[in-house]
């Protein structure tokens, strides 16, 4: 989707630039809070996540800041760990998407017409194939775990990255200096390394940032469908699913993970929007 927007944009002006900086700042702060929580959770949590001494569904108080779950475990601790898992899902699946997507995209971009056509139409199908369903298949195969979710979401995201990479690759290959390099005897790999890869990232960084937020949301949905890993190492999506049954008794547990999810995704999306304004080559040309 972001691809279309990037391609559709031609000339942009002052409004965009002004909004861009605001987006970067606000997005950075929101995501920063979550990243901070994630880092803190590595070194410290108020309780051991498996500690069941808190009593069933206790209300929030001085010791258990967000109450306890039905096994008596500290909810605040789980929320902190959830931050770590959310960041892991985001980064992990974006990395998988980037590595795989760039490889496939380069392959399509460098290949002959026939291979390229086949790969392109396969990518169209892959993009049409819903992330969630792919993830469900992988979970059914590998079992429900964070890894399964990351792999599935990464795989699904790679199709978009691949399509963008292919477009950029072909554009660069058509440049005169690349033709010159070819004639001079630079190998295909050399061209990919020296000319294509360095020019990819301005195009890819925005969709990658958008995929971060999308990945966190997708994992939450998977967890909601019961395909994520349960507490004490539960993602926010899973916490929401567990809390749903006790929403009238312990409403806070059904709200806090959702708010954190929204903060994370809004943060990542704003960051992506801001980056788009800063990095869009057409915008720079206009300046």
């Amino acid at each position: 989707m972001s691809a279309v927007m990037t391609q559709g944009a031609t000339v942009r002006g002052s409004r965009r630039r002004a909004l861009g900086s605001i987006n970067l700042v606000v997005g950075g702060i929101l995501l920063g809070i979550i990243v901070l929580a994630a880092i803190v959770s590595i070194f410290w949590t108020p309780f051991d996540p498996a500690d069941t001494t808190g009593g069933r569904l206790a209300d929030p108080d001085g010791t258990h800041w967000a109450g306890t779950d039905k096994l008596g475990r500290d909810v605040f601790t789980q929320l902190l760990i959830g931050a770590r898992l959310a960041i892991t899902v985001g980064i992990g699946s974006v990395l998988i998407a980037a590595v795989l997507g760039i490889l496939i995209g380069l392959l399509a971009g460098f290949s002959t017409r026939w291979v390229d056509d086949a790969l392109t139409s396969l990518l169209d199908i892959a993009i049409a194939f819903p992330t969630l369903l792919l993830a469900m298949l992988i979970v059914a195969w590998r079992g429900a775990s964070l890894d399964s979710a990351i792999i599935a979401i990464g795989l699904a995201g790679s199709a978009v990255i691949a399509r963008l990479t292919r477009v950029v690759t072909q554009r660069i290959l058509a440049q005169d200096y690349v033709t010159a390099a070819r004639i001079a005897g630079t190998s295909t790999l050399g061209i990919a390394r020296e000319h294509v890869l360095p020019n990819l990232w301005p195009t890819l960084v925005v969709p990658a940032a958008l995929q971060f937020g999308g990945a966190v949301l997708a994992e939450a949905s998977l967890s909601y469908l019961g395909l994520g890993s349960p507490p004490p190492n539960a993602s926010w999506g899973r916490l929401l699913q567990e809390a749903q049954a006790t929403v009238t008794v312990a409403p806070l547990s059904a709200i806090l993970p959702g708010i954190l999810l929204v903060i994370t995704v809004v943060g990542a999306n704003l960051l992506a929007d801001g980056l788009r304004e800063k990095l869009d080559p057409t915008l720079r040309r206009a300046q």
Partner: protein
Amino acid sequence: MSSTRRPRLLVGLAALAISAIALTGCTSNAGSGTSGSDKDPINVGSIYEPTSLDPIKGGSSGITEAFTGNVYEGLFRITDDAKVEPLLATGYKVSEDGLTYTFPLREATFHSGDPVTAEDVVFSLNRILSPESLGARKKQLSVISNVVATDPKTVTVTLSKKSSSFVYNLGYVWIINHKAKDLTSTEDGSGPYTLADYRKGSSISLSPYTKYWGDKPKNAGIEFHYYTDPTALNNALLTGQVDVITGLTSPDALPQFEKSGKFNIIEGTSTTKELLAFNDRVAPFDNVQVRKAIYSAIDRKKLLESIWDGRGQLIGAMVPPSEPGYLDLKDNNPYDVDLAKKLLAESGHADGFSFTLDTPDSGVHPTVAEFIKGELAKINIDVKINLITDDKWAEKVYGAHDFQATMQDHVNDRDIYFYQNPDFYWGYNNADVQKWLDEAEAAATPQEQSDLIAKANKQISDDAASVWLYLNPQLRVAAKDIKGVPVNGMNSLFYVSKITRG
């Protein structure tokens, strides 16, 4: 500036559209279920949707709940308090050697109008015993060596060996019209209800069968509504879309029902046992002391408190209080962390060890597994929880015996005989237990049968063949005006013909 008008108009339109939709919702109201009179069907909510209408082709407890005793009938019926009484058979006669049973049949007709004959009984029994059949009780019924229709209204069954639970097991075998063609989208049984409508994925509705041989149903019909998510099921009852739900899978929603004052909570006994089952064949679980150490390290009382909020019962072996052979063994392996440490040290694992717990990702299993992980950490045992789907469980654990330990709930009544089979997934192999349970099947009197089962039950408990964590409560919730709901959860049976409204 004139241009500002357009967006406002659009916003207005959007707001209108939203409120219009919200309004249609408000005026037509949600409660179509409970407000009805006794001419309306009773709406029953359940999370156990039958995978198929024909359990021979593989089924679930769902089809038992919806059809057994309601649409199809057996020769006998198992009552809500676990007794056996004649149904399509008017009784039975056994030969001296206990191997030949004669069943006279009642005058009854199938929903298609054909009479119930001995030929149908022969057909139905052979059907469940056929090689590709996946029907329940097939294994136990395989003691049948021959079924013949001696006359149109009499069936004679010959057994290969004595089976004291044979008649009981017949309570689960549907008698189906042998002329029936399509049993996957229609039915042809002899029960008090006919299948009126079948919507895979959402509902089954039953209408009274006007020519039913016995007591007519007391309601105008039954609609089963199926939900995959327990919360959605609870919400359906809370908002009046269903009148009664067949079972609560967690106590989480109980306060909601209690608070509103509009519901009756019906607590009965179930036969569903939550187990931590070891693979008794493999180290370290081939060692009795290791198994007993783990048993004693788990605080079952606290677990039951956490999962069921104090409902349900603690058990110490496979047989629940409602069945022959029950003994109070809940402290046979007491909760005692020091004892656990001592046993573990004696077994040569003083420093603990680590194992993988294959946990079905359904129901309460993941939560219970986490609890166990926390408990066993106290005796230095590290549990790695491996979540798998129910089907993967069947393939990996049940089919391939490829596991160290697993979680499972055993729903069936009288299922201690699983410990008799050394090829069962947990691989418990004890010659005495096998002998006693064999003798129990051949026992002359119920007392003798019960005593032998009790001996076997004590032995598996002494051996900590598995960890029997607790017996689930059977909790049904019904709107206040609903009467006649079956209380107990005997292997999912749910007889609906006495349920009334008002």
